[in-house]
């Protein structure tokens, strides 16, 4: 039982760490590159405008898709690793 508990706690810890990492990337591309850091990226031209604009209208959406699939793939591996899957 104690083993089960520490196993579960380790699983939850790994999950929270993974979520944190994913959310950092999520915030960086949207609130970061696309909004707050846009002036810093204005020197990088892309098709008649700058990289920040591209992130706001294209790049962030593409990154979001990547994050969700990455998280699903990693979590399914974690489920199996800790024996907590269905």
């Amino acid at each position: 039982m104690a083993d089960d508990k520490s196993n579960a706690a380790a699983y939850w810890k790994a999950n929270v760490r993974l979520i944190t990492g994913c959310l950092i990337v999520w915030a960086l591309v949207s609130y970061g590159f696309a909004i707050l850091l846009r002036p810093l990226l204005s020197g990088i031209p892309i098709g008649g405008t700058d990289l920040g604009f591209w992130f706001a209208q294209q790049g962030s959406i593409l990154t979001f898709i990547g994050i969700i699939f990455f998280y699903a793939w990693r979590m399914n591996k974690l489920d199996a690793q800790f024996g907590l899957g269905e």
Partner: protein
Amino acid sequence: MSQFAINLLFVGASFALYIGIAIWARAGSTKDFYVAGGGVHPITNGMATAADWMSAASFISMAGLLASGGYANSTYLMGWTGGFVILALLLAPYLRKFGKFTVPDFIGDRFYSNTARTVAVVCLIVASVTYVIGQMTGAGVAFSRFLEVSNTWGIWIAAFIVFLYAVFGGMKGITYTQVAQYIVLIVAYTIPAIFIALHLTGNPIPMFGMFSTHTESGLPLLEKLNSVLNELGFEDYTADVDNKLNMVLFTLSLMVGTAGLPHVIIRFFTVPKVADARWSAGWALVFIAILYLTAPAVASMARLNLLTTVYPEAADQVENYEEAIDNALVYAERPDWIITWENTGLIEFTDHNDDGRIQLYNDANPDFEETAEARGWEGNELEVNNDILVLANPEIANLPGWVIGLIAAGGIAAALSTAAGLLLAISSAISHDLIKKTINPNITEKGEMLAARISMAGAILLATYLGLNPPGFAAQVVALAFGLAGASIFPALMMGIFSTRMNSTGAICGMLAGLGATLLYIFTYLGWFFMSGTNMLPNTPENWILGISPLSFGAVGAMINFAVAFAVCSVTAPPPKEIQELVESVRYPKGAGGAIDH
């Protein structure tokens, strides 16, 4: 065949398709009606979720707002897609493990309180009714155009059809109907975009065409657009915004709202496995992204097409626009699409300087007054409603009649599927969560159905009435609904999953504070219950607290919700032990089992 007949044909054929699929799929799926995603592959479920999710706001209205606001309105793009990351990482797998069917059910059980359940029902109704107002606005535009009636008639006809659609209910729950709706919607959206991208840039993929060269002028498309806009006193399309705080909060509001809206969350309650809940969210976003990556291209290209319709000679100019601007379109020679939209009242022309030509420019820009005066202009003469842009887009670009019919069918599919889904969420919240679970547990099945129908009719009448004088464009009204859901329901779900310590008093106070603060802020600027003329302060940036628009306040409301909940929770008793154990168990996929009926 006339355009009117083509439109009717496409809309009629698409309806026949949905009804046909509903009848074909019904036989096999009535018994597991609640488990809409059960046994359905995550890709199929993702497609159905995308149809459920993309409403008139995404389809009809969003590109229009992007076109008029440029970069500043990128918030809609990021907000309505980024929310799926929160949903997939923070909510979907755990709500699936919890195994309930409705949001008030989760909140009622997790916070072991019927009061919490009732408060959740109230939050859900407020957010959903606001959402339906936005759908009625959008559907009204679509119907007024394709039936060639006034906008007011368009809204009433839309209300009638949405009501029929929602009462026959079954259509909604059947995943395959939604898959068909998704296909109609996405084909209708992308085909005109491909044609236009090909015509303007030679690149058939709109999301790349937007960043490539404009064929006629040889300039990059966005640079070309900026230069024409500058010439007319408008801000650059790609201009950065000053108020970054508002932009961040607006994006955040839409994101947390996505994770708090009942009709989307519900789809993740019912997938077969926890792992599938994670995959489904990813696939849903892929299908949504096809539209969302195309929308900015549609927006920028339509804006340019509109300008070059009014100033035909500006299309191939590189910098010298004077002559092109003098030779603006003669009103008597305007294309047919302007005439048909004038009939709906959504395009208006006033010849301020009586020169018989159309002058479209930014008359609200004080720096531009001198130039306008020198050109003999006496005010902007063409008022174009943002919400018509996507529907008018194929006509503006001179595409064949069948493309116009297709887009009418797509717009109506988007508005109807979401409006019907929300009405079902409202009626089940009232009849099931409120009446059956709280007020009168002994109600008969017949009585429950009657209550559901009455609440559905009530919600649609209210939404239609408010939709006649909407507090904004379709996508803006929907954004308000997201703010309300994000400020009330999202924090309660989050705390219910991630905090074992959160108790019922904390959650209830949090939801009430979040909803109350957000409603108060919105009503202050947009009028009490959205009645025009009852607002206490004018809705302009100078009057907003710290420049935070009512559309962005949902994020602040969510923070208030969290703060109040934790403060109240820290001075009241912790939840019972079995609830704390329940929260722990939700964290692990093992033993999820089937979704439990009730």
